[in-house]
């Protein structure tokens, strides 16, 4: 009777999987955001509190993530670390997106020589490895949150600029732009009224996709000792300070901060992926939205 069984609608399994991916991602992101927003003001514990009597305790009911080598509670430090890393990630992604949108919109909307000149500068800029450039920028300042934000923001606008420029070029060929020109719109008004609003969904998506990347960069810079000062909890500094204990067999100071880097960033990327599928018309018709 197997040949009489109704065939599954094509793409249905994939669609269900996507829906679940979206639900899980959204729940995780909401949970992490609530945690970093609510835990510090509500709990009122000091994440820097040293308790040398309780150093390097494995996970237990008192300390679910264990304690580090000076007896600080790792769960609390992970939440504070994620708070700093998310802040850095979001602000750096915003900086990169605003910069990239401005450059891409200018190149796409003005066209001609401006476009060629700007895009060659973008090519030159992207030929420099961005982690190296980021290290160079943070090295110019004292360690802290803002140099990391500036470093990640200033090195990650290139892809957004390319996306925005391409989108603007495709919008510029539409007849409604001709109609606006004929209606007397200045270049500035054309950009403000028709072109920029048209690229905002793409730019917004680029910004959200940038957040996990920015968090990884913050972690990488802090891990290298160039980002945040070591006493300040961030995901990168936590993993960095756990290096010494890992070889002694104490796995928890590395594992939990590591998970706090991986899980939230994958969840944000999952959300962004779902958004991208909504923007993609082919997908949209498939989803029947």
């Amino acid at each position, binding site marked *: 009777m197997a040949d009489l069984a109704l065939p599954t609608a094509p793409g249905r399994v994939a669609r269900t999987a996507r829906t679940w991916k979206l639900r899980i991602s959204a729940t995780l992101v909401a949970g992490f955001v609530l945690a970093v927003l609510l835990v510090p003001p509500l709990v009122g514990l000091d994440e820097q509190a040293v308790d040398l009597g309780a150093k390097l305790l494995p996970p237990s009911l008192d300390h679910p993530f264990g304690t580090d080598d000076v007896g600080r509670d790792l769960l609390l430090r992970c939440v504070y670390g994620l708070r700093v890393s998310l802040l850095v990630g979001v602000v750096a992604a915003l900086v990169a997106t605003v910069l990239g949108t401005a450059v891409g919109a200018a190149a796409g909307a003005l066209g001609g020589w401006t476009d060629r000149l700007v*895009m060659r500068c973008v090519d030159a800029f992207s030929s420099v490895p961005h982690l190296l450039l980021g290290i160079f920028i943070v090295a110019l300042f004292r360690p802290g949150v803002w140099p990391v934000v500036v470093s990640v923001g200033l090195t990650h606008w290139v892809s957004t600029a390319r996306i925005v420029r391409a989108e603007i070029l495709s919008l510029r060929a539409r*007849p409604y732009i001709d109609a606006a020109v*004929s209606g007397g719109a*200045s270049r500035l008004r054309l950009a403000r009224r028709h072109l920029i609003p048209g690229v905002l969904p793409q730019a917004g998506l680029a910004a959200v996709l940038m957040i996990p990347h920015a968090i990884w960069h913050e972690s990488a810079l802090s891990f290298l000792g160039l980002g945040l000062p070591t006493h300040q909890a961030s995901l990168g500094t936590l993993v960095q300070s756990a290096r010494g204990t890992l070889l002694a067999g104490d796995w928890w100071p590395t594992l939990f901060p590591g998970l706090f880097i991986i899980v939230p960033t994958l969840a944000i990327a999952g959300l962004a992926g779902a958004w991208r599928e909504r923007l993609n018309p082919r997908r949209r018709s498939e989803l029947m939205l």
Partner: protein
Amino acid sequence: MLELLSLTAGYDRRAPVVRDVTLTLAPGEAVGLLGPSGCGKSTLARVAALLHRPDSGRVVIDGEPARGYRHRAPRAQRTAFGVVFQQPRQSADPRLRLADLIAEPLRATGRPEGAADKAAETADTVGLGSDLLGRRPHEVSDGQLQRACLARALILRPRYLVCDEMTAMLDASTTAALVGVVEEYRRETGAALLAVGHDRVLLDRWCDRTVEWSELGSRHDGLATAKPPAEQSPSVR
């Protein structure tokens, strides 16, 4: 008077779509331009409305040569033309409500005061009910959207109307209504009209004279079937 003098234009200098075309619109005259699809008549219409720079030749508006094309044209010359395109969906910014779509030229030319009232008034003359003005393009039909596009073209009271296959996507009754609106406007203002299309019966009845594309001195060799630049973005970087 609008004079298009020895215009050669296209999207690739080596293969122009419009070759050495001369066409004159007398004051208040309605000229129909008839030709098969892809022959370059839309390109000629865009050049005439100062929306596309020709490779050579001149456009002279009321004795004054066009001083540039697109944004290089002075605003007064650009807004002397009201342009209506073939596909209303492509000619309307999907984010604007119809009221804003129609009022946009007033706001763009620095006359925002009373723009909403003027837009409602113009919408009324093209037969667009005021209940539709709060909707966005995807919430109205092609015919309703084309009425809004016509209202947008008329709101600055242009001296020339360029209708590029304005009615190609519409049914007969909407076509008749829109042609009626254009004619009413022309009676009122004495504006001249360049109507491009491939429907001989319509153009013959609508216009004072109808010109065949092949009579325009354009050496059409069958190869120059370039589309307007929708797909022709500069090299992908």
